[in-house]
Protein backbone atom coordinates (compact mmCIF):
# COMPACT_ATOMS: atom_id res chain seq x y z
CA UNK A 1 0.00 0.00 0.00
CA UNK A 2 1.34 3.36 -0.91
CA UNK A 3 1.89 5.70 1.98
CA UNK A 4 0.20 9.06 1.64
CA UNK A 5 2.89 11.71 1.25
CA UNK A 6 1.85 15.01 2.84
CA UNK A 7 2.20 17.67 0.16
CA UNK A 8 3.21 21.18 1.06
CA UNK A 9 1.51 24.10 -0.58
CA UNK A 10 4.03 26.10 -2.57
CA UNK A 11 4.44 29.78 -1.84
CA UNK A 12 3.79 32.26 -4.63
CA UNK A 13 7.50 32.78 -5.20
CA UNK A 14 8.12 29.05 -5.37
CA UNK A 15 5.32 28.48 -7.85
CA UNK A 16 6.67 31.26 -10.04
CA UNK A 17 9.56 28.81 -10.42
CA UNK A 18 12.12 31.30 -11.68
CA UNK A 19 13.82 32.09 -8.38
CA UNK A 20 14.03 28.39 -7.53
CA UNK A 21 15.68 27.71 -10.87
CA UNK A 22 18.24 30.42 -10.19
CA UNK A 23 18.96 28.94 -6.76
CA UNK A 24 19.52 25.55 -8.35
CA UNK A 25 21.82 27.03 -10.98
CA UNK A 26 23.91 28.73 -8.31
CA UNK A 27 24.25 25.45 -6.45
CA UNK A 28 25.38 23.49 -9.51
CA UNK A 29 27.83 26.10 -10.76
CA UNK A 30 29.42 26.31 -7.32
CA UNK A 31 30.23 22.60 -7.62
CA UNK A 32 31.68 23.11 -11.10
CA UNK A 33 33.92 25.95 -9.94
CA UNK A 34 35.12 24.03 -6.91
CA UNK A 35 35.92 20.98 -9.04
CA UNK A 36 37.77 22.95 -11.71
CA UNK A 37 40.13 24.47 -9.17
CA UNK A 38 40.61 21.38 -7.05
CA UNK A 39 40.69 18.25 -9.22
CA UNK A 40 41.75 16.08 -6.28
CA UNK A 41 38.51 16.86 -4.51
CA UNK A 42 36.49 14.17 -6.31
CA UNK A 43 35.47 11.13 -4.33
CA UNK A 44 36.09 9.04 -7.44
CA UNK A 45 39.08 6.72 -7.25
CA UNK A 46 40.56 6.40 -10.74
CA UNK A 47 40.60 2.66 -10.39
CA UNK A 48 43.18 0.87 -12.46
CA UNK A 49 45.71 3.58 -11.66
CA UNK A 50 44.69 4.36 -8.12
CA UNK A 51 43.35 1.75 -5.74
CA UNK A 52 41.15 2.04 -2.77
CA UNK A 53 43.00 1.15 0.45
CA UNK A 54 40.93 -1.70 1.79
CA UNK A 55 40.07 -1.99 5.45
CA UNK A 56 42.45 -4.24 7.36
CA UNK A 57 39.66 -6.70 8.12
CA UNK A 58 38.48 -6.86 4.49
CA UNK A 59 37.97 -10.46 3.34
CA UNK A 60 40.09 -10.85 0.20
CA UNK A 61 41.68 -13.81 -1.54
CA UNK A 62 42.62 -16.72 0.71
CA UNK A 63 46.17 -17.53 1.60
CA UNK A 64 47.67 -20.56 3.37
CA UNK A 65 50.05 -19.91 6.23
CA UNK A 66 53.29 -21.78 6.77
CA UNK A 67 55.29 -22.81 9.80
CA UNK A 68 58.81 -21.50 10.35
CA UNK A 69 60.17 -24.65 8.65
CA UNK A 70 58.22 -23.82 5.48
CA UNK A 71 55.55 -26.54 5.68
CA UNK A 72 51.92 -25.47 5.48
CA UNK A 73 50.20 -25.18 8.84
CA UNK A 74 47.12 -26.99 7.55
CA UNK A 75 46.65 -30.48 8.97
CA UNK A 76 43.90 -31.46 6.52
CA UNK A 77 41.35 -31.77 9.29
CA UNK A 78 38.56 -31.13 6.75
CA UNK A 79 36.85 -28.58 8.97
CA UNK A 80 36.86 -25.91 6.28
CA UNK A 81 35.42 -27.99 3.41
CA UNK A 82 32.75 -29.16 5.84
CA UNK A 83 31.71 -25.72 6.92
CA UNK A 84 32.03 -24.10 3.53
CA UNK A 85 28.50 -23.13 2.41
CA UNK A 86 29.53 -22.98 -1.24
CA UNK A 87 31.30 -26.36 -1.14
CA UNK A 88 34.21 -24.95 -3.05
CA UNK A 89 37.18 -26.27 -1.06
CA UNK A 90 38.71 -29.54 -2.27
CA UNK A 91 41.40 -31.11 -0.09
CA UNK A 92 43.27 -34.32 -0.79
CA UNK A 93 44.96 -35.34 2.44
CA UNK A 94 48.26 -37.18 2.74
CA UNK A 95 50.53 -38.34 5.54
CA UNK A 96 53.55 -36.36 6.53
CA UNK A 97 56.59 -38.65 5.93
CA UNK A 98 58.63 -36.93 8.66
CA UNK A 99 55.94 -37.15 11.28
CA UNK A 100 53.44 -39.96 10.68
CA UNK A 101 51.16 -38.57 13.37
CA UNK A 102 50.44 -35.51 11.22
CA UNK A 103 48.33 -35.23 8.09
CA UNK A 104 48.89 -32.55 5.49
CA UNK A 105 47.05 -31.45 2.34
CA UNK A 106 48.61 -32.92 -0.80
CA UNK A 107 46.27 -30.73 -2.77
CA UNK A 108 44.28 -27.79 -1.49
CA UNK A 109 42.07 -26.11 -4.12
CA UNK A 110 39.53 -23.35 -3.66
CA UNK A 111 37.24 -22.62 -6.58
CA UNK A 112 37.08 -18.83 -6.40
CA UNK A 113 34.19 -18.75 -8.87
CA UNK A 114 31.99 -20.45 -6.30
CA UNK A 115 33.40 -18.94 -3.12
CA UNK A 116 31.08 -16.40 -1.53
CA UNK A 117 33.80 -14.86 0.66
CA UNK A 118 31.89 -15.64 3.82
CA UNK A 119 35.05 -16.31 5.84
CA UNK A 120 33.66 -19.43 7.56
CA UNK A 121 36.71 -21.43 6.51
CA UNK A 122 38.95 -19.00 8.36
CA UNK A 123 36.82 -19.18 11.48
CA UNK A 124 36.53 -22.97 11.38
CA UNK A 125 40.25 -23.65 11.09
CA UNK A 126 41.68 -25.02 14.35
CA UNK A 127 45.25 -24.39 13.22
CA UNK A 128 44.91 -20.82 11.93
CA UNK A 129 46.20 -22.22 8.65
CA UNK A 130 43.96 -20.27 6.25
CA UNK A 131 43.31 -16.57 6.28
CA UNK A 132 41.61 -14.02 4.05
CA UNK A 133 43.66 -11.03 5.17
CA UNK A 134 45.44 -10.42 1.86
CA UNK A 135 43.15 -7.53 0.92
CA UNK A 136 43.37 -8.74 -2.69
CA UNK A 137 40.10 -8.11 -4.51
CA UNK A 138 41.24 -8.38 -8.11
CA UNK A 139 40.59 -12.11 -8.45
CA UNK A 140 40.31 -12.79 -12.15
CA UNK A 141 41.58 -15.07 -14.89
CA UNK A 142 40.97 -15.92 -18.51
CA UNK A 143 39.84 -19.51 -17.93
CA UNK A 144 37.65 -21.18 -15.35
CA UNK A 145 40.51 -23.51 -14.50
CA UNK A 146 42.73 -20.57 -13.57
CA UNK A 147 40.10 -19.36 -11.15
CA UNK A 148 40.76 -22.40 -8.98
CA UNK A 149 43.47 -21.32 -6.57
CA UNK A 150 45.78 -24.21 -5.65
CA UNK A 151 48.04 -24.81 -2.69
CA UNK A 152 51.29 -23.33 -3.99
CA UNK A 153 49.44 -20.26 -5.29
CA UNK A 154 47.85 -19.61 -1.93
CA UNK A 155 51.09 -20.19 -0.02
CA UNK A 156 53.02 -17.72 -2.18
CA UNK A 157 50.22 -15.20 -2.65
CA UNK A 158 51.69 -12.48 -0.50
CA UNK A 159 55.29 -12.62 -1.78
CA UNK A 160 56.37 -9.08 -2.53
CA UNK A 161 52.83 -7.70 -2.19
CA UNK A 162 51.45 -4.83 -0.20
CA UNK A 163 51.52 -5.14 3.62
CA UNK A 164 49.17 -7.71 4.98
CA UNK A 165 46.60 -7.02 7.62
CA UNK A 166 48.94 -8.88 9.92
CA UNK A 167 51.62 -6.23 9.50
CA UNK A 168 49.08 -3.53 10.24
CA UNK A 169 48.00 -5.35 13.38
CA UNK A 170 51.60 -5.88 14.44
CA UNK A 171 52.37 -2.18 14.10
CA UNK A 172 49.22 -1.20 15.91
CA UNK A 173 47.99 -4.13 18.07
CA UNK A 174 44.92 -2.29 19.36
CA UNK A 175 43.33 -2.56 15.88
CA UNK A 176 43.54 -6.36 15.86
CA UNK A 177 40.34 -8.32 16.46
CA UNK A 178 39.94 -9.83 19.92
CA UNK A 179 41.86 -13.12 20.33
CA UNK A 180 43.94 -12.58 17.22
CA UNK A 181 47.09 -14.73 17.18
CA UNK A 182 50.00 -13.49 15.19
CA UNK A 183 51.49 -15.54 12.40
CA UNK A 184 54.79 -17.17 13.29
CA UNK A 185 56.67 -15.72 10.36
CA UNK A 186 59.66 -13.62 11.37
CA UNK A 187 59.25 -9.86 11.24
CA UNK A 188 61.27 -8.59 8.26
Amino acid at each position, binding site marked *: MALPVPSRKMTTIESAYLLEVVKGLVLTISHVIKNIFDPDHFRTI*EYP*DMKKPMAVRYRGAHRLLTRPDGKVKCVACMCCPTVCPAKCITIIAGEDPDDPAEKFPVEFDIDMLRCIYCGFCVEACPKDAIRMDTRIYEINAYTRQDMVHNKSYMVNLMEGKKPEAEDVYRANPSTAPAGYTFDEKPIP
Partner: protein
Amino acid sequence: MSMEEVLPVLVVLAKCVFAVAFVMQIVPLLIWAERKGSAYIQDRPGPNRAHILGIRAGGHVHSLTDVVKLIMKEDIVPGHVNWFYWFIAPVVAMTIALSTFVVVPFGDYLTIMGHKIDLRVSEIDGGLLYVLAMTSLGVYGIMLAGWASNNKFSLLGGLRSSAQMVSYELAMGLSAAVIFLMAGSVSLRDIVDAQIVGWAPNGTFLNWNVFSVPGAIAFVLFWTAAFAETNRTPFDLPEGEAELVAGYHTEYSSLRFALFFMAEYANMIVAAAVTTTLFFGGFSTGLPFVDGAFLREHADLVLAVIGLGAVPPLLAFSAIAWKRRNRDFYKALSADDIRHREPRFFAALWGGLAVVHLGLGVAGLAGIPTSVLGVELGGDLVALAVHMTAFSLKVLFGCWFFIWVRWTIVRFRYDQLMNLGWKRMLPLALANLFLAALWIIVKETMLA
Protein backbone atom coordinates in the same frame (compact mmCIF):
# COMPACT_ATOMS: atom_id res chain seq x y z
CA MET B 1 34.71 35.07 -66.62
CA SER B 2 36.40 37.88 -64.88
CA MET B 3 37.24 37.99 -61.21
CA GLU B 4 34.50 40.59 -60.79
CA GLU B 5 31.86 38.04 -61.78
CA VAL B 6 33.28 35.10 -59.89
CA LEU B 7 33.85 36.92 -56.63
CA PRO B 8 30.21 37.15 -55.42
CA VAL B 9 29.73 33.42 -56.03
CA LEU B 10 32.92 32.58 -54.19
CA VAL B 11 31.93 34.83 -51.32
CA VAL B 12 28.55 33.14 -50.95
CA LEU B 13 30.16 29.70 -51.06
CA ALA B 14 32.76 30.71 -48.49
CA LYS B 15 30.07 32.06 -46.20
CA CYS B 16 28.00 28.86 -46.55
CA VAL B 17 31.02 26.73 -45.69
CA PHE B 18 31.73 29.01 -42.78
CA ALA B 19 28.17 28.75 -41.42
CA VAL B 20 28.17 24.94 -41.58
CA ALA B 21 31.68 24.73 -40.15
CA PHE B 22 30.87 27.12 -37.32
CA VAL B 23 27.96 25.00 -36.14
CA MET B 24 29.60 21.65 -36.76
CA GLN B 25 32.75 22.61 -34.91
CA ILE B 26 30.89 23.64 -31.81
CA VAL B 27 28.94 20.35 -31.74
CA PRO B 28 31.79 18.11 -30.50
CA LEU B 29 32.77 20.83 -28.07
CA LEU B 30 29.24 20.81 -26.66
CA ILE B 31 29.14 17.04 -26.40
CA TRP B 32 32.34 17.30 -24.42
CA ALA B 33 30.92 20.12 -22.29
CA GLU B 34 27.79 18.10 -21.67
CA ARG B 35 29.81 15.17 -20.34
CA LYS B 36 32.43 17.06 -18.45
CA GLY B 37 29.97 19.69 -17.18
CA SER B 38 27.53 17.10 -15.92
CA ALA B 39 30.41 15.27 -14.26
CA TYR B 40 31.70 18.38 -12.53
CA ILE B 41 28.21 19.32 -11.39
CA GLN B 42 27.89 15.87 -9.84
CA ASP B 43 31.43 15.86 -8.35
CA ARG B 44 32.75 13.23 -10.74
CA PRO B 45 35.87 13.57 -12.90
CA GLY B 46 34.03 12.68 -16.11
CA PRO B 47 35.59 11.14 -19.22
CA ASN B 48 39.34 10.84 -18.68
CA ARG B 49 40.57 7.47 -19.89
CA ALA B 50 40.97 7.58 -23.67
CA HIS B 51 44.24 9.12 -24.76
CA ILE B 52 46.35 9.65 -27.85
CA LEU B 53 50.07 9.20 -27.08
CA GLY B 54 49.33 9.94 -23.46
CA ILE B 55 47.44 13.19 -24.12
CA ARG B 56 43.94 12.83 -22.74
CA ALA B 57 42.99 16.46 -23.41
CA GLY B 58 40.49 16.51 -20.56
CA GLY B 59 38.20 13.99 -22.27
CA HIS B 60 38.13 15.48 -25.77
CA VAL B 61 39.53 12.21 -27.13
CA HIS B 62 36.27 10.54 -26.09
CA SER B 63 34.30 12.67 -28.56
CA LEU B 64 36.67 11.51 -31.27
CA THR B 65 36.30 7.86 -30.33
CA ASP B 66 32.55 8.36 -30.24
CA VAL B 67 32.56 9.46 -33.85
CA VAL B 68 34.58 6.39 -34.83
CA LYS B 69 32.23 4.19 -32.84
CA LEU B 70 29.10 5.65 -34.44
CA ILE B 71 30.55 5.21 -37.92
CA MET B 72 31.59 1.61 -37.29
CA LYS B 73 28.32 0.50 -35.70
CA GLU B 74 25.80 -1.58 -37.56
CA ASP B 75 23.08 0.49 -39.16
CA ILE B 76 19.90 -1.40 -38.32
CA VAL B 77 16.78 -0.78 -40.39
CA PRO B 78 13.81 -2.37 -38.61
CA GLY B 79 11.41 -4.23 -40.89
CA HIS B 80 8.31 -2.40 -39.77
CA VAL B 81 9.27 1.19 -40.55
CA ASN B 82 7.89 3.35 -43.29
CA TRP B 83 11.25 3.44 -44.96
CA PHE B 84 11.07 6.62 -47.07
CA TYR B 85 10.11 8.93 -44.22
CA TRP B 86 12.27 6.96 -41.85
CA PHE B 87 15.33 7.58 -44.04
CA ILE B 88 14.74 11.27 -44.61
CA ALA B 89 13.80 12.18 -41.01
CA PRO B 90 17.35 12.57 -39.63
CA VAL B 91 18.41 14.43 -42.76
CA VAL B 92 15.48 16.82 -42.39
CA ALA B 93 16.30 17.40 -38.74
CA MET B 94 19.93 18.17 -39.45
CA THR B 95 19.36 20.27 -42.57
CA ILE B 96 16.83 22.51 -40.89
CA ALA B 97 19.00 22.91 -37.82
CA LEU B 98 21.92 24.03 -39.98
CA SER B 99 19.94 26.24 -42.34
CA THR B 100 18.54 28.44 -39.58
CA PHE B 101 21.98 29.84 -38.97
CA VAL B 102 22.25 31.50 -42.39
CA VAL B 103 20.54 34.77 -41.42
CA VAL B 104 22.48 35.37 -38.22
CA PRO B 105 25.09 38.13 -38.61
CA PHE B 106 28.47 37.27 -37.11
CA GLY B 107 30.31 40.48 -37.95
CA ASP B 108 29.58 43.81 -39.58
CA TYR B 109 31.32 43.89 -42.97
CA LEU B 110 34.52 43.00 -44.74
CA THR B 111 35.84 44.90 -47.74
CA ILE B 112 37.52 42.70 -50.33
CA MET B 113 38.69 44.27 -53.60
CA GLY B 114 36.38 47.21 -53.16
CA HIS B 115 33.30 45.07 -52.44
CA LYS B 116 31.63 45.53 -49.09
CA ILE B 117 30.63 42.06 -47.95
CA ASP B 118 27.93 41.75 -45.33
CA LEU B 119 28.97 39.13 -42.79
CA ARG B 120 25.96 36.84 -42.76
CA VAL B 121 25.27 34.10 -45.25
CA SER B 122 21.98 35.37 -46.61
CA GLU B 123 21.19 39.06 -46.76
CA ILE B 124 17.41 38.72 -46.61
CA ASP B 125 15.58 41.44 -44.72
CA GLY B 126 12.96 39.24 -43.11
CA GLY B 127 15.61 37.45 -41.10
CA LEU B 128 13.65 37.05 -37.90
CA LEU B 129 10.59 35.74 -39.76
CA TYR B 130 12.83 33.21 -41.49
CA VAL B 131 14.20 32.11 -38.12
CA LEU B 132 10.71 31.64 -36.69
CA ALA B 133 9.64 29.72 -39.79
CA MET B 134 12.66 27.43 -39.71
CA THR B 135 12.47 26.70 -35.99
CA SER B 136 8.88 25.60 -36.42
CA LEU B 137 9.94 23.39 -39.33
CA GLY B 138 12.55 21.88 -37.03
CA VAL B 139 9.90 19.72 -35.42
CA TYR B 140 9.25 17.98 -38.76
CA GLY B 141 12.34 15.79 -38.45
CA ILE B 142 11.15 14.59 -35.06
CA MET B 143 7.56 14.11 -36.17
CA LEU B 144 8.60 12.19 -39.27
CA ALA B 145 10.91 10.00 -37.24
CA GLY B 146 8.24 9.36 -34.63
CA TRP B 147 5.57 8.50 -37.16
CA ALA B 148 7.72 6.52 -39.60
CA SER B 149 9.27 4.41 -36.83
CA ASN B 150 5.86 2.79 -36.52
CA ASN B 151 5.93 2.04 -32.83
CA LYS B 152 3.95 3.60 -30.02
CA PHE B 153 6.84 5.08 -28.07
CA SER B 154 8.33 6.88 -31.04
CA LEU B 155 4.89 8.07 -32.09
CA LEU B 156 4.22 9.45 -28.62
CA GLY B 157 7.58 11.21 -28.72
CA GLY B 158 6.74 12.80 -32.06
CA LEU B 159 3.27 13.83 -30.86
CA ARG B 160 4.62 15.39 -27.70
CA SER B 161 7.19 17.26 -29.71
CA SER B 162 4.61 18.77 -32.04
CA ALA B 163 2.24 19.66 -29.19
CA GLN B 164 5.10 21.30 -27.36
CA MET B 165 6.08 23.22 -30.46
CA VAL B 166 2.55 24.54 -31.00
CA SER B 167 2.30 25.69 -27.38
CA TYR B 168 5.63 27.43 -27.11
CA GLU B 169 5.81 28.88 -30.60
CA LEU B 170 3.22 31.49 -29.57
CA ALA B 171 5.15 32.78 -26.59
CA MET B 172 8.32 32.73 -28.66
CA GLY B 173 6.78 34.67 -31.55
CA LEU B 174 5.23 37.24 -29.22
CA SER B 175 8.51 37.85 -27.43
CA ALA B 176 10.29 38.19 -30.76
CA ALA B 177 7.61 40.73 -31.71
CA VAL B 178 8.77 42.89 -28.81
CA ILE B 179 12.16 43.02 -30.48
CA PHE B 180 10.72 44.10 -33.85
CA LEU B 181 8.88 46.87 -32.09
CA MET B 182 12.01 48.09 -30.36
CA ALA B 183 14.27 47.84 -33.41
CA GLY B 184 11.63 48.82 -35.98
CA SER B 185 12.82 46.10 -38.35
CA VAL B 186 12.81 42.33 -38.75
CA SER B 187 16.25 42.15 -40.32
CA LEU B 188 18.63 40.62 -37.81
CA ARG B 189 21.37 42.96 -38.98
CA ASP B 190 19.20 46.01 -38.21
CA ILE B 191 18.32 44.52 -34.83
CA VAL B 192 22.01 44.20 -33.96
CA ASP B 193 22.78 47.71 -35.20
CA ALA B 194 19.92 49.08 -33.09
CA GLN B 195 21.52 47.49 -30.01
CA ILE B 196 24.92 49.11 -30.60
CA VAL B 197 23.59 52.65 -30.40
CA GLY B 198 21.35 53.87 -27.60
CA TRP B 199 21.31 56.10 -24.54
CA ALA B 200 24.66 54.79 -23.29
CA PRO B 201 27.88 55.27 -25.34
CA ASN B 202 28.01 53.24 -28.55
CA GLY B 203 28.75 49.58 -28.03
CA THR B 204 27.97 49.56 -24.29
CA PHE B 205 26.23 46.44 -23.07
CA LEU B 206 23.55 48.65 -21.48
CA ASN B 207 22.18 49.28 -24.97
CA TRP B 208 21.37 45.61 -25.47
CA ASN B 209 17.70 44.71 -25.64
CA VAL B 210 17.91 42.57 -22.54
CA PHE B 211 18.70 45.65 -20.45
CA SER B 212 15.29 47.21 -20.94
CA VAL B 213 12.19 46.18 -18.99
CA PRO B 214 10.14 44.66 -21.83
CA GLY B 215 13.34 43.24 -23.35
CA ALA B 216 14.25 41.45 -20.14
CA ILE B 217 10.79 39.88 -19.80
CA ALA B 218 10.81 38.95 -23.48
CA PHE B 219 14.23 37.38 -23.01
CA VAL B 220 13.08 35.15 -20.17
CA LEU B 221 10.05 34.03 -22.18
CA PHE B 222 12.01 33.56 -25.40
CA TRP B 223 14.73 31.61 -23.67
CA THR B 224 12.24 29.34 -21.89
CA ALA B 225 10.47 28.73 -25.19
CA ALA B 226 13.86 28.02 -26.79
CA PHE B 227 14.34 25.18 -24.31
CA ALA B 228 11.03 23.74 -25.42
CA GLU B 229 11.77 24.19 -29.13
CA THR B 230 15.16 22.51 -28.89
CA ASN B 231 13.71 19.71 -26.74
CA ARG B 232 16.18 20.23 -23.94
CA THR B 233 15.58 19.43 -20.29
CA PRO B 234 13.34 20.49 -18.52
CA PHE B 235 11.19 20.17 -21.66
CA ASP B 236 12.76 17.07 -23.22
CA LEU B 237 9.51 15.11 -23.12
CA PRO B 238 9.84 13.82 -26.73
CA GLU B 239 12.75 11.65 -25.63
CA GLY B 240 11.82 11.16 -22.00
CA GLU B 241 13.72 7.92 -21.55
CA ALA B 242 11.90 6.90 -18.38
CA GLU B 243 8.59 6.81 -20.23
CA LEU B 244 9.35 6.46 -23.93
CA VAL B 245 12.53 4.34 -24.19
CA ALA B 246 14.30 7.01 -26.26
CA GLY B 247 11.26 8.69 -27.82
CA TYR B 248 11.43 9.52 -31.50
CA HIS B 249 14.92 8.10 -32.09
CA THR B 250 14.30 4.70 -30.48
CA GLU B 251 14.62 2.83 -33.79
CA TYR B 252 17.68 4.66 -35.07
CA SER B 253 21.23 3.44 -34.75
CA SER B 254 24.70 4.21 -36.05
CA LEU B 255 25.12 7.40 -38.10
CA ARG B 256 21.40 8.00 -38.38
CA PHE B 257 21.24 8.31 -34.63
CA ALA B 258 24.35 10.49 -34.77
CA LEU B 259 22.50 12.86 -37.11
CA PHE B 260 19.67 13.28 -34.61
CA PHE B 261 22.16 13.68 -31.82
CA MET B 262 24.07 16.36 -33.72
CA ALA B 263 20.85 18.04 -34.81
CA GLU B 264 19.91 18.48 -31.16
CA TYR B 265 23.19 20.24 -30.47
CA ALA B 266 23.02 22.22 -33.72
CA ASN B 267 19.56 23.40 -32.63
CA MET B 268 21.00 24.51 -29.32
CA ILE B 269 23.73 26.48 -31.06
CA VAL B 270 21.24 28.13 -33.39
CA ALA B 271 18.89 28.97 -30.51
CA ALA B 272 21.81 30.47 -28.60
CA ALA B 273 22.92 32.41 -31.70
CA VAL B 274 19.42 33.80 -32.30
CA THR B 275 18.99 34.75 -28.65
CA THR B 276 22.39 36.44 -28.70
CA THR B 277 21.39 38.40 -31.77
CA LEU B 278 17.98 39.43 -30.47
CA PHE B 279 18.80 40.21 -26.85
CA PHE B 280 22.55 40.39 -26.30
CA GLY B 281 23.67 42.67 -29.09
CA GLY B 282 24.82 39.95 -31.51
CA PHE B 283 28.43 40.61 -32.39
CA SER B 284 28.65 43.86 -30.40
CA THR B 285 31.50 43.81 -27.90
CA GLY B 286 29.59 45.29 -24.97
CA LEU B 287 32.40 47.72 -24.13
CA PRO B 288 31.74 51.46 -24.12
CA PHE B 289 32.86 53.25 -27.31
CA VAL B 290 34.13 50.01 -28.87
CA ASP B 291 32.06 49.70 -32.04
CA GLY B 292 33.00 48.74 -35.60
CA ALA B 293 34.31 52.21 -36.49
CA PHE B 294 36.46 52.36 -33.34
CA LEU B 295 37.94 48.92 -34.03
CA ARG B 296 38.85 49.88 -37.60
CA GLU B 297 40.37 53.18 -36.56
CA HIS B 298 42.54 51.75 -33.78
CA ALA B 299 43.20 48.32 -35.30
CA ASP B 300 46.84 48.14 -34.19
CA LEU B 301 46.09 49.28 -30.67
CA VAL B 302 43.23 46.76 -30.33
CA LEU B 303 45.51 43.96 -31.49
CA ALA B 304 48.20 45.02 -29.03
CA VAL B 305 45.74 45.12 -26.13
CA ILE B 306 44.28 41.71 -26.98
CA GLY B 307 47.68 40.12 -27.58
CA LEU B 308 49.33 41.44 -24.45
CA GLY B 309 46.18 41.03 -22.35
CA ALA B 310 46.01 37.31 -23.17
CA VAL B 311 49.59 36.65 -22.06
CA PRO B 312 49.12 36.63 -18.25
CA PRO B 313 46.12 34.25 -18.22
CA LEU B 314 47.83 31.92 -20.68
CA LEU B 315 50.95 31.86 -18.53
CA ALA B 316 48.76 31.16 -15.50
CA PHE B 317 47.16 28.23 -17.35
CA SER B 318 50.62 26.99 -18.21
CA ALA B 319 51.69 27.16 -14.57
CA ILE B 320 48.53 25.38 -13.41
CA ALA B 321 49.05 22.63 -16.00
CA TRP B 322 52.67 22.24 -14.86
CA LYS B 323 51.59 22.02 -11.23
CA ARG B 324 49.12 19.25 -12.02
CA ARG B 325 52.11 16.90 -12.29
CA ASN B 326 51.86 16.66 -8.52
CA ARG B 327 48.29 15.40 -8.46
CA ASP B 328 47.67 12.16 -6.57
CA PHE B 329 46.69 10.60 -9.87
CA TYR B 330 50.08 11.11 -11.49
CA LYS B 331 51.84 9.97 -8.34
CA ALA B 332 49.90 6.70 -8.49
CA LEU B 333 51.01 6.00 -12.09
CA SER B 334 54.11 3.94 -12.75
CA ALA B 335 57.15 6.00 -13.74
CA ASP B 336 57.13 4.94 -17.41
CA ASP B 337 53.41 5.59 -17.98
CA ILE B 338 52.99 7.78 -21.07
CA ARG B 339 50.27 9.80 -19.39
CA HIS B 340 53.00 11.60 -17.47
CA ARG B 341 53.47 13.60 -20.67
CA GLU B 342 50.13 15.28 -20.34
CA PRO B 343 50.84 18.09 -17.85
CA ARG B 344 54.10 18.86 -19.65
CA PHE B 345 52.33 18.93 -23.00
CA PHE B 346 49.68 21.34 -21.74
CA ALA B 347 52.20 23.54 -19.98
CA ALA B 348 54.09 23.75 -23.29
CA LEU B 349 50.87 24.36 -25.26
CA TRP B 350 49.66 27.23 -23.10
CA GLY B 351 53.19 28.63 -22.91
CA GLY B 352 53.45 28.48 -26.72
CA LEU B 353 50.11 30.26 -27.09
CA ALA B 354 51.35 32.92 -24.66
CA VAL B 355 54.38 33.46 -26.89
CA VAL B 356 52.15 33.71 -29.97
CA HIS B 357 49.98 36.31 -28.23
CA LEU B 358 53.02 38.21 -27.09
CA GLY B 359 54.14 38.29 -30.73
CA LEU B 360 50.70 39.55 -31.82
CA GLY B 361 50.77 42.23 -29.15
CA VAL B 362 54.22 43.43 -30.13
CA ALA B 363 53.26 43.41 -33.81
CA GLY B 364 50.22 45.49 -32.92
CA LEU B 365 52.32 47.96 -30.95
CA ALA B 366 54.74 48.26 -33.86
CA GLY B 367 51.82 48.97 -36.22
CA ILE B 368 52.67 46.04 -38.47
CA PRO B 369 49.12 44.79 -39.36
CA THR B 370 47.92 48.00 -40.94
CA SER B 371 51.23 48.72 -42.66
CA VAL B 372 51.40 45.25 -44.20
CA LEU B 373 47.72 44.61 -44.97
CA GLY B 374 46.75 48.19 -45.63
CA VAL B 375 44.60 50.30 -43.36
CA GLU B 376 41.33 49.08 -44.82
CA LEU B 377 41.88 45.31 -44.84
CA GLY B 378 43.86 45.32 -41.58
CA GLY B 379 41.09 47.23 -39.82
CA ASP B 380 38.44 44.96 -41.28
CA LEU B 381 40.23 41.81 -40.20
CA VAL B 382 40.75 43.07 -36.64
CA ALA B 383 37.10 44.12 -36.45
CA LEU B 384 36.05 40.72 -37.82
CA ALA B 385 38.21 38.88 -35.28
CA VAL B 386 36.90 40.92 -32.36
CA HIS B 387 33.27 40.67 -33.47
CA MET B 388 33.53 36.94 -34.12
CA THR B 389 35.10 36.39 -30.72
CA ALA B 390 32.42 38.42 -28.95
CA PHE B 391 29.69 36.57 -30.87
CA SER B 392 31.19 33.12 -30.29
CA LEU B 393 31.70 33.73 -26.60
CA LYS B 394 28.07 34.75 -26.19
CA VAL B 395 26.87 31.75 -28.19
CA LEU B 396 29.08 29.38 -26.23
CA PHE B 397 27.81 30.79 -22.97
CA GLY B 398 24.25 30.30 -24.20
CA CYS B 399 25.04 26.69 -25.08
CA TRP B 400 26.64 26.16 -21.69
CA PHE B 401 23.48 27.57 -20.15
CA PHE B 402 21.45 24.86 -21.90
CA ILE B 403 23.76 22.23 -20.44
CA TRP B 404 23.84 23.86 -17.05
CA VAL B 405 20.05 23.89 -16.81
CA ARG B 406 19.82 20.31 -18.00
CA TRP B 407 21.87 19.08 -15.06
CA THR B 408 20.06 21.31 -12.56
CA ILE B 409 16.34 20.95 -13.20
CA VAL B 410 14.23 17.84 -13.49
CA ARG B 411 11.91 17.13 -16.39
CA PHE B 412 8.40 18.63 -16.39
CA ARG B 413 5.33 16.47 -16.39
CA TYR B 414 3.30 16.80 -19.57
CA ASP B 415 0.36 18.64 -18.00
CA GLN B 416 2.71 21.00 -16.18
CA LEU B 417 4.39 21.75 -19.47
CA MET B 418 1.09 22.62 -21.12
CA ASN B 419 -0.03 24.68 -18.12
CA LEU B 420 3.18 26.66 -18.17
CA GLY B 421 2.97 27.26 -21.90
CA TRP B 422 -0.68 28.24 -22.20
CA LYS B 423 -1.63 29.64 -18.80
CA ARG B 424 1.53 31.46 -17.79
CA MET B 425 3.77 32.24 -20.74
CA LEU B 426 1.17 33.16 -23.35
CA PRO B 427 -0.66 35.79 -21.22
CA LEU B 428 2.65 37.10 -19.96
CA ALA B 429 3.98 37.44 -23.50
CA LEU B 430 0.83 39.28 -24.60
CA ALA B 431 1.00 41.65 -21.64
CA ASN B 432 4.67 42.21 -22.36
CA LEU B 433 3.88 43.19 -25.94
CA PHE B 434 1.60 45.97 -24.62
CA LEU B 435 4.24 46.97 -22.13
CA ALA B 436 6.80 47.19 -24.92
CA ALA B 437 4.54 49.40 -27.02
CA LEU B 438 4.00 51.68 -24.01
CA TRP B 439 7.72 51.69 -23.25
CA ILE B 440 8.56 52.82 -26.77
CA ILE B 441 5.99 55.62 -26.71
CA VAL B 442 7.22 56.85 -23.32
CA LYS B 443 10.84 56.67 -24.45
CA GLU B 444 10.12 58.59 -27.65
CA THR B 445 8.17 61.33 -25.91
CA MET B 446 10.89 61.67 -23.27
CA LEU B 447 13.64 61.86 -25.87
CA ALA B 448 11.70 64.37 -27.98
